[in-house]
């Protein structure tokens, strides 16, 4: 394995500039190595501290990030993690998310270059999310919490700086989404009446996982009135049924993130997570007539002709292809709000567990610390 110091001797490995914070900010923005916000300068010393939590070869790529297909080596990812404001113990989770994004079903190439406003939503499950402080409570999808802000931002910076998802060149989003700065949450497993996402998917409860979704920003589901499962689910189905959603056309996996209070009400009426998915699959539908005349003719009659070629105008258009395609999590704190997160559509969610290089599940982030 090459040493960090030998890697830094390679041509182009180091950039030099004035160490004044404003000068660093100007320098990196001018180089296009930025998300537009100030960063922590990725000095060799800081990158080395980040790599203290890396049990891989620093120069061996863990992924190739399109559209440039840049080599995502730990040292490069660590530079972006420093810039984003990560603590070193966040670093294995940033790497894990990038490895998940690079799995083929996610369609990273398509999601990076598309005109659609999608970005990776990172959902963390298991004990390490809590250990490193990823917020799953009040304002879980919002600001303030360092781990949520910095881990999501580090992934986004890597997508730009390593993958060249540069607006107008490699990222063709028409208007994009503010979620492209960061979109990182943990599931509030303690407040959920159901199995957490990773257990539902077959991982052991003690595993720590990330699930990546090519997501739009969250759409709020406000329901202060319903006191039954049916009432809340009816409001959720109403929020899901939007004509401008890619999920009306493709078989992507959108997500409903229930607030704990909504989840408790639903479970209190005896509904399992599978029941919720089935309910929403059946009722989150729009009649085809709600789409434009051109949309009906071009999208449904021709492109989706196997389903809609001769379907009546009141034929239901579903927002998920199967009940199992709907991802259901519980996150956030007190309050009568949940969220619906549509997706790019032509993508599948990917879940990966955090493992040591010997293949064993990581139980505590401290296991990954070198020395």
């Amino acid at each position, binding site marked *: 394995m090459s040493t960090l110091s030998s890697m830094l001797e390679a041509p182009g490995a180091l950039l030099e500039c004035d160490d004044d914070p404003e000068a660093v900010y100007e320098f990196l923005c001018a180089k296009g190595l930025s998300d537009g916000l100030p960063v922590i300068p990725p000095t060799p010393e800081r990158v080395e501290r980040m790599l203290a939590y890396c049990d891989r070869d620093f120069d061996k790529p863990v992924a190739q990030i399109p*559209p440039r297909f840049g080599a995502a080596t730990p040292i490069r990812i660590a530079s972006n993690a420093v810039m984003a404001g990560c603590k070193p113990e966040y670093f294995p989770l940033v790497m894990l998310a990038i490895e998940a994004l690079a799995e083929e079903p996610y369609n990273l190439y398509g999601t990076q270059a598309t005109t659609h406003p999608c970005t990776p939503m990172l959902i963390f499950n298991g004990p390490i999310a809590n250990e490193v402080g990823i917020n799953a409570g009040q304002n879980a999808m919002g600001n303030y919490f360092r781990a949520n802000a910095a881990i999501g931002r580090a992934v986004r910076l890597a997508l730009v700086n390593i993958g060249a998802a540069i607006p*107008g060149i490699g990222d063709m989003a028409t208007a994009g989404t503010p979620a492209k700065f960061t979109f990182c949450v943990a599931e509030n497993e303690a407040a959920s009446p159901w199995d957490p996402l990773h257990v539902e998917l077959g991982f052991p409860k003690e595993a720590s996982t990330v699930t990546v979704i090519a997501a739009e920003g969250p759409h709020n589901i406000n329901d202060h009135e319903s006191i039954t499962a049916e009432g809340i689910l009816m409001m959720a189905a109403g929020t899901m049924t939007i004509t401008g959603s890619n999920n009306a056309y493709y078989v992507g996996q959108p997500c409903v993130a229930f607030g704990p209070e909504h989840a408790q009400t639903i479970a209190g009426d005896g509904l399992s997570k599978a029941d919720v998915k089935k309910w929403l699959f059946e009722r989150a539908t729009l009649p085809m007539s709600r789409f434009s005349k051109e949309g009906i003719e071009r999208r449904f009659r021709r492109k989706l002709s196997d389903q809609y070629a001769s379907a009546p105008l009141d034929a239901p258009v579903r927002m998920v292809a199967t009940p199992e395609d709907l991802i259901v999590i519980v996150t956030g704190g007190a309050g009568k709000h949940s969220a619906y997160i549509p997706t790019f559509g032509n993508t599948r969610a990917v879940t990966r567990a955090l493992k040591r290089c010997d293949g064993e599940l990581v139980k505590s982030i401290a296991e990954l610390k070198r020395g």
Partner: protein
Amino acid sequence: MAQLTKRGLIAAVVCSDTFMKLGSAQAKVFGVPDLPLLKIQHPLGGLNMDKVRERAAVALPQLLTLLKEQQS
């Protein structure tokens, strides 16, 4: 198209002007920096057939020129 080019076939990509930078960058990434891009006006999606024909009329001469150059 990159694969077809590497197999020795004449290949090109119809690309709207807005996407030329992406197309050019991707051709380099996929190892065919000289892959011809047939430039048309953006957009191509959401057009009626007359507008699509206009784009085709712009792309076709570029394709014919390419074929003549490649075969000569």
